[in-house]
């Protein structure tokens, strides 16, 4: 079984030879390590993700980054430059298409051709593997700020090789966060191995004095995920990455909607990740946090979406996140036009600058929520470590198997899916069904009581219907889901 142990160099290099053969673009000379290292060393500081993050955190700034990617290279470059110039983006992404994410490079090739013919993107992202290092370097060279690959790829080994060799100084993903929400039947053992490889690659460059950033995907399914669950996954992925030599990690969190819970979550995400990294012996890892603006279903209305986006930027800034992944007013409809994408960015930007001098005041509620998160994360981390007999890699696999770790609404068969979240009366995400999540009785009672309080207020039972109502709620303009009958009335009212 896979262990949380750094891959020995020779093993890594041997593996690498195979990986590069997965698709013709893997055989590019630019993937020669010496060539790649020279290329990466020449990346100026202001285009290096890791360094820009360090600077921003030191200055207490919150920077912004969109999602964006299209099938055709020139259009992709144009899109990115537009988002930098018209959107005031601080970081650029290249969101990878869904065929590439499933390693279906042939499908992607087909869709590129179709897109060229029809002169519009038929892909939901940029097929980086098909364009290879050469294409990706074109992207890197055409823009003036750091670029990152954002995807959802269980096996991103070839993709990671290509993008880093092309000067892309950050890579999103992780063995858990790019499996459970993004796959159906791939084992965690496999994806952890795949991502150990991706991390080892970053560690390899680190040994050569090249600092690259890695970002576990925080929001998971984006659907009512309790902060302690996503924090635990983020911390474990940070530990797995650190073991492979990664030195610059951004842990993420998806806006839940209750301001107090969001701020407690962001602050504890930073402190807990730092704490546990050090506790487990990874002393020299630089940690930043990223807030993902609302990751669930968006309202159809664009003006309402702008408000939701603004609220996300607000909690990110007050919660001290170093980065925000922004949404656009087209979110509920489809991949945004570049104009709509830039609108989401500019709204976010001004929120970060307007609020940069302000802090969320210390208060009892914040402390209570933070303490709860800390306690729950501790429970989940140690349960994972215990079942893994001291090893986090092994622990994660078994923890999911036994449902000690469980992510709501995930497609993966590796996930028990017994946990059910719902919101309490103030809109905090709580847990309705624990499945096998190993919380102590006190904690469970806290969640239960919170939901009972809401149920009483709404004059109904605590039940799965609450969860469903909560899933729909934000797209209907509420945070706490109204009982279906009421919402129907509401819908007609609008």
């Amino acid at each position: 079984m896979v262990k949380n142990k750094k891959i020995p160099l020779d093993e890594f290099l041997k593996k690498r030879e195979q990986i590069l053969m997965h698709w013709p673009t893997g055989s590019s000379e630019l993937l020669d390590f010496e060539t790649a290292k020279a290329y990466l060393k020449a990346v100026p500081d202001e285009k290096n993700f890791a360094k820009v993050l360090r600077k921003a955190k030191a200055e207490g700034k919150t920077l912004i980054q969109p999602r964006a990617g299209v099938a055709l290279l020139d259009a992709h470059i144009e899109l990115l430059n537009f988002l930098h110039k018209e959107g005031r983006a601080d970081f650029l992404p290249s969101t990878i298409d869904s065929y590439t994410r499933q390693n279906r490079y042939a499908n992607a090739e087909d869709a590129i051709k179709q897109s060229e013919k029809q002169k519009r993107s038929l892909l939901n992202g940029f097929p980086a593997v098909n364009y290879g290092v050469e294409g990706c370097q074109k992207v890197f060279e055409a823009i003036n700020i750091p670029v990152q690959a954002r995807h959802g790829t269980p096996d991103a080994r070839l993709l990671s090789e290509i993008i880093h060799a092309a000067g892309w100084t950050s890579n999103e993903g992780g063995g858990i966060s790019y499996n459970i929400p993004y796959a159906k039947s791939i084992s965690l053992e496999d994806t952890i191995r795949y991502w150990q490889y991706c991390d080892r690659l970053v560690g390899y460059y680190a040994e050569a004095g090249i600092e690259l950033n890695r970002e576990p995907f925080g929001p998971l399914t984006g659907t009512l995920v309790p902060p302690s669950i996503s924090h635990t996954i983020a911390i474990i992925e940070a530990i797995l990455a650190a073991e492979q030599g990664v030195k610059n990690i951004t842990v993420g969190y998806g806006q839940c909607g209750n301001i107090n819970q969001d701020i407690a979550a962001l602050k504890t995400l930073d402190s807990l990740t730092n704490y546990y990294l050090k506790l487990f012996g990874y002393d020299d890892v630089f940690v930043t946090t990223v807030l993902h603006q609302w990751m669930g279903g968006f309202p159809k209305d664009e003006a309402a979406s702008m408000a939701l986006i603004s609220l996300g930027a607000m909690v990110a800034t007050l919660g001290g996140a170093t980065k925000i992944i922004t949404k656009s007013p087209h979110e509920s409809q489809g991949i945004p036009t570049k104009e709509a994408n830039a609108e989401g960015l500019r709204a976010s930007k001004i929120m970060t600058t307007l609020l940069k001098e302000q802090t969320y005041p210390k208060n009892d509620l914040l402390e209570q929520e933070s303490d709860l998160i800390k306690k729950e994360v501790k429970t989940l981390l140690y349960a994972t470590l215990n079942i893994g007999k001291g090893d986090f890699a092994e622990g994660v696999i078994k923890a999911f198997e036994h449902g000690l770790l469980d992510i709501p609404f995930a497609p993966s068969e590796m996930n028990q899916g017994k946990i059910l979240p719902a919101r309490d009366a103030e809109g905090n995400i709580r847990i309705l069904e624990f499945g096998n999540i190993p919380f102590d009785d006190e904690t469970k009672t806290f969640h239960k009581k919170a939901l009972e309080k809401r149920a009483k207020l709404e004059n109904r039972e605590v039940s799965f219907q609450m969860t469903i109502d909560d899933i729909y709620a934000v797209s209907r303009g509420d945070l706490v889901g109204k009982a279906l009958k009421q919402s129907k009335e509401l819908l007609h009212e609008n």
Partner: protein
Amino acid sequence: MHTVVIGVIGADVHAVGNKIIEHVLNEHGFNVVNIGVLSSQEDFINAAIETNAKAILVSSLYGHGEIDCRQMKDNCVEAGLSHVKLYVGGNIVVGKQDFKEVEDRFKKMGFDRVYPPGTNIEEAIEEIKADLT
């Protein structure tokens, strides 16, 4: 009790809507065969044959729906499922497009009904019930 096949087509992993559709169809008394996410046309067709389903509800959220659904009606007919109603919904194309045009395109491809983003599944079920009886 009508049997219907539901699932999410292509390389698409959006699971939330799929789980809710299953739940709500069950509540409305359907016999639901859920093949889940990452399902191919073949998966849908095989499930429909095996369970003698009256309808197939294809979800596509991630934008590749247009590519993934090519020839689906023909493939159904070929498999002897010409009588099976074919529905599609979700965010079935890339980007915000005029829905009338999108609907036309998918209807030409042989889908009986085409649902826009954020469709209220309760309302769709009423139409589907009417179609099947």
